[in-house]
């Protein structure tokens, strides 16, 4: 659906993107993650044909460079903050965007209704809250039913409720078979994503499925375990017994078992959880409750950035 090959973009002497290549298959969801200034928005603007670039970008077999209009017709774009060129109502803006996208007026009406914005259609578009604007932007991006949706920092400045709503929307869009590219520097979305592309200083520093990347990093999941009070020291001994002592170990990582109220909290890398749990049960310790907090791309973000990490 989207193939970016050797994408390079310079602003004067500054190299914003340096040989970036990635692929998003049809129906997949990809996370473009990186710190501020990593080149995420630049990459998106190149895909949209807004910036001149070196390299090749193909959207659904259409080359952005020489067939920009048709390539953009395949894309629904949700910008970081939807700007309105002039002060008008939500309804007028929707009709205007429908015209730009060659969509029938009725489709704009339906989109507003589906996004529960029809009731406020006469309100000034500029008076919409950030969350409402995002809702509006997504509904407009869906006009003409484009197969690829691109989001630029969709959860910036959005409250927790808005972020949860956005996660639900992403899941809905995935179910609809849409291909998604989401650029963010903080997400909480990686568990829904087929691919994570980690960008730093204009280069890809890691790329793959979130699971693969985490395994490659030996990223540890956090376990919360509730056992009888007397069994706490035995659990600690079992867990710590799985690790060799390393004096250079960073504080708060590795085998340390912390007590948090009734809970014992510790981190275990992939492949070790089952063995540890088996051993605990084998020791006759009754597990009263268990929570596993999986590691995410976001939680391992700085490690992923490696040398590209900001100072």
């Amino acid at each position, binding site marked *: 659906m989207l193939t970016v090959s050797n994408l390079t973009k310079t602003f004067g002497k500054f190299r914003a993107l340096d040989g970036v290549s990635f692929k998003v298959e049809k129906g997949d969801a990809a996370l473009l993650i990186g710190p501020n200034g990593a080149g995420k928005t630049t990459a998106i603007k190149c895909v949209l044909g*807004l910036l001149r670039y070196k390299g090749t970008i193909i959207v659904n077999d259409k080359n952005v460079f020489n067939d920009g209009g048709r390539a953009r017709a395949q894309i629904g774009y949700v910008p970081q903050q939807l700007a309105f060129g002039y002060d008008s109502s939500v309804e007028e803006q929707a009709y205007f965007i429908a*015209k730009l996208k060659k969509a029938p*007026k009725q489709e704009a009406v339906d989109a507003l209704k589906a996004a529960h914005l029809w009731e406020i259609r006469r309100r000034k578009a500029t008076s919409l809250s950030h969350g409402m604007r995002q809702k509006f932007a997504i509904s407009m991006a869906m006009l003409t039913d484009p197969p690829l949706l691109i989001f630029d920092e969709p959860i910036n400045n959005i409250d927790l409720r808005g972020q949860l709503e956005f996660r639900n929307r992403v899941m809905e869009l995935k179910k609809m078979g849409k291909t998604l590219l989401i650029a963010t520097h903080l997400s909480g979305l990686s568990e829904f994503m087929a691919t994570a592309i980690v960008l730093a200083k204009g280069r890809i520093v890691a790329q793959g499925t979130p699971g693969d990347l985490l395994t490659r990093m030996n990223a540890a999941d956090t376990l919360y375990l509730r056992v009888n009070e007397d069994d706490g020291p035995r659990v600690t001994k079992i867990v710590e017994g799985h690790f060799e002592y390393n004096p250079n170990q960073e504080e708060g990582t590795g085998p340390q078992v912390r007590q948090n109220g009734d809970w014992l909290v510790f981190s275990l890398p992939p492949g070790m959880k089952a063995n540890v749990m088996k051993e605990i049960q084998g020791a006759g310790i009754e597990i009263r409750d268990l929570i596993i907090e999986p590691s995410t791309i976001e939680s391992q973000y700085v490690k992923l950035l490696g040398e590209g990490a900001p100072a």
Partner: protein
Amino acid sequence: MKAGSALWGITVQTFKVTIRSKWLIMFAIVFFFFSFNLPFLSLGSLLSTIPAKNVPNFIQVVITTSFSLMPLLALPIGAVSIVEERESGSLAFILSTPTSRGKFLFARFCGLLAATTFIIVLGFTFAALVAFRLSTGTTQMWYVTEAAVLLNAAMVSVSLVISSLSRKRLTAYGGAIFLWFLFSYAGDTTVTAPILVAANQYWVLLPSILLNPIEVSRLIALFSMNVVTGGPLAITSSDIGSTGQALINIFGMPGAVEALWVTMGMWMSIMLASAYFILTFQDIR
């Protein structure tokens, strides 16, 4: 139910925004006051309407006072029209849709031209009605309007070049005011033209005439009246002035009129093409 084309959508949106802009409203008021009311009041304060023999003089005054002001209508409005969208981020959003930059620019041109032309036509029609009450002179005012619309179209094209080039609104305003000053005052040939004509240096004068759209449109207005109406209301060669005489000497008649029309067409097309190339080959951040 079709929502219509992107071209139409942007044109209508531009028209609406322009027609509601404070600058346009303020300009319209000032423009009417200076261009029509003052000459009319001075000439017609003693008479109910302008006598036929004074019509050419009156129109000369109208042309002189209004044409130098005319660029102030389109230049600032057009100069900020793209840069404003660039600053707000809506330009990037519009161009992220299948709408091409060329289509966007052309639609913006059409919208700006429609709104500013509406004001000009309205103004001149109103002035003609007040000054001539549909009697002699109304036809002549039509030729003035025609030339004014041409000048306005050229200025809209120029303004889009400024807007495509500018990154900030203030720069765009500065560029617009500078060009207005350049065309209206720095490019004024009132002093140099008679000297060059007297010395038969017509070709030396030619570039300064053709490179100044205000002068070109002024001459189009005067020539149109001279050629078409004839009779006692015709503009004489002295009314045309040194620049007009220079053109007649170089191109003859009707060659001079044709040269002026071609020049105006080139002003529009070259400027519009320049704006297109600037916008097409630039990054929209």
